[in-house]
C-alpha cells in the first residue's frame, strides 16, 4: 500500500513538473513581433516629435533594420523583456548616438508598434506604443511547398475518398 501511495505521489509530481515546465515555456516562449516606426509623431499633447534622419536597430547583436525617415522595421522577440540597441542619427550628417533600450512587452499582444522618436523622448507609453493589427489577407500566398520530404504523389490529398472530379 505504502509503495502505491509513493508511486501515485511520484506520478503526480511528474505531471506537476510537466505542467510547470509547460507553463514556464508558455511564459518564456511567448513570441512577439516588434515593429519600429521612425515616423514623426504629430501633435501629441500639442507637440510634434520629428522623425530621425536614420536609425539603426540592433537586436541580439544582429542588425535588424536601418530606418530612414518614415520607415518601419521589424524584429521578432521571444519573451517579454525586449532589449535593443538604437543607433540614432538625429540630423543629417549628425553624430550617431547610441541608446540601449529595455522594454517590457505586454504578454497578450502579438504585434507591437513602437514609435521611436516618441520612445526616445521618454513620453508615456500611450504615445509610442500601439498594437499592430494585421490586415487579414484573403488567402495568404498559397503555401510555399515547404522543403518537406515531398513524399508520394497524390496519395495524400483526400485519403482515398475523393470520388471524382466533382459531384454531378
Amino acid at each position, binding site marked *: 500500500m505504502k509503495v502505491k501511495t509513493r508511486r501515485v505521489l511520484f506520478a503526480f509530481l511528474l505531471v506537476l513538473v510537466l505542467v510547470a515546465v*509547460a507553463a514556464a515555456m508558455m511564459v518564456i516562449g511567448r*513570441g*512577439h513581433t516588434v515593429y519600429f516606426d521612425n515616423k514623426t509623431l504629430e501633435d501629441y499633447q500639442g507637440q510634434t516629435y520629428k522623425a530621425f534622419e536614420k536609425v539603426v536597430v540592433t537586436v541580439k547583436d544582429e542588425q535588424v533594420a536601418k530606418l530612414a525617415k518614415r520607415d518601419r522595421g521589424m524584429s521578432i522577440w521571444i519573451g517579454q523583456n525586449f532589449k535593443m540597441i538604437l543607433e540614432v542619427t538625429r540630423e543629417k550628417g549628425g553624430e550617431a548616438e547610441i541608446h540601449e533600450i529595455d522594454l517590457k512587452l505586454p504578454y497578450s499582444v502579438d504585434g507591437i508598434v513602437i514609435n521611436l522618436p516618441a520612445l526616445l523622448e521618454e513620453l508615456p507609453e500611450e504615445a509610442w506604443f500601439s498594437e499592430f493589427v494585421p490586415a487579414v489577407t484573403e488567402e495568404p500566398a498559397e*503555401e*510555399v511547398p515547404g522543403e518537406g520530404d515531398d*513524399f*508520394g*504523389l497524390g496519395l495524400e490529398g483526400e485519403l482515398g475518398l475523393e470520388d471524382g472530379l466533382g459531384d454531378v
Partner: protein
Amino acid sequence: MNGKKNIPAGKRLLELVRNNAVPIMFIIICAIFIPMAGFSPSYLLNEIVTRMGRNLFLVLCLLFPIMAGMGLNFAMTLGAMGAEIAVILVADWQIWGIPGVVLAMILSIPFSALLGFICGTLQNMAKGREMITSYIINFFINGWYQLIVLYVMGAVIPIIHASIMLPRGYGIRNTVSLLNMRQCLDDLLAIRVAGVKIPVFTFLLVGLLCLFIVWFRRTKLGQDMRAVGQDMEVAKAAGINVDRTRIISVVMSTVCAGFGMVIYLQNIGNLPTYTGHAQIGMFCIAALLVGGASVEKAGIGNAFLGVILFHMMFIVAPGAGAFITGDSMVGEYFRVFLSYGVITLALIMYEAKKRMAKSKAGQELAAAQVKKEDA
C-alpha cells in the same frame, strides 16, 4: 543448428545475402542511381544528414510494437496527429523557438497517449490482423482529426489568430507556418563539417531515444513485451497481462511518435495540416524495412541503415529517372513504386516464411524411411 560450423563459406555468404536481400538491393539501386542523378557529394551528404535528423526519431518509434509482436504498426501515425494538434495550438498561442518545441512535445503527450490507448484496445480485439487494423484505425482517426481541426477548432476551441484560420472563420488553414520554430532544435549546437550542417542536438535526442530503447529492453516491461511478442499464450500462462502489455507498447509508440513529429515539423518549418501525417507511417515503415528489418524483428541498426538508404534512393531517383527516360516524373513515380514495392516484398517474404517451416518435418520422416530401407 549444431552443424553451423560445417557449412562452407560460400553457402554462408549466400545465406547472408538472402537474409539481407532488401538492403543489398537498395545499396545496388543507390550505387547505380547516384552517378546518374549527378548530385555533388556534399549536397547528397547534406540532404541525408538533414533527413536523418528529421526522420530517425519517427522510425525508431516503430520498434516498440514490433517488440510486442504487433508487427509494423501504423499506430505511430496517431502520435503524429496528436503532435499536430499540439503544434497548431502552440502556433496559435505564439510560443516560439525552443520553448515552443518543448511545449508542443509536452502538450502532445495526452493526445497521443489517448489515441494510442484507443488504437491498442482496438488492436487487441483484432489479434492476428493488427497491421491492417492499425492501417484502418489510422484512416478512421484521421476522420476525427479532420473533424476537430476543420470544424471544432475556431468554432469550439478558441483560435486567436486569423492567420492560421480558414477565411470562413473556423477550421485551420492547409498550411500553418512554423517559421518561428523552424529548425530551432537543429540549429542548437549545430556544427558544420565541410559544408555539411550537422544538427547535433537533434541527433542527441535520437541518441537518447536509442539509449532508452536499449535500456528499455533490459527492463521487466521490455522483457515482458518481448515475451508477449514471441508467444502470447506462453506469456499469458506465465502470468503476464498480455493485453495490457500490448496496449502499453502502442502507447509508447504513439507518444514517442508525437515527439518525433514535433522534431520533424520544426525541421520542415511549416505544418501541412491535413497531409502532414498521412504518409508518415507508410514511409517510416518502408525505411525500416529497407534497413533489413522484418515484420517480427527490427533493431536500431535497421532504422539507421534504412533511413540512409531509403532517403538516398528518394533523393536520387527523380534525377536518375530523368536521366534514363528524359522525364523527371518517371523518377518520382519510380521512387514511390520502390517504396511500396519494398513493403509488399517484405510482407510477402514474412508470410511465405511462416509457411516454409511447415514442410520440413515431413522431409525428415521421409528421410528416416529411406534410411531404414538402406539398412
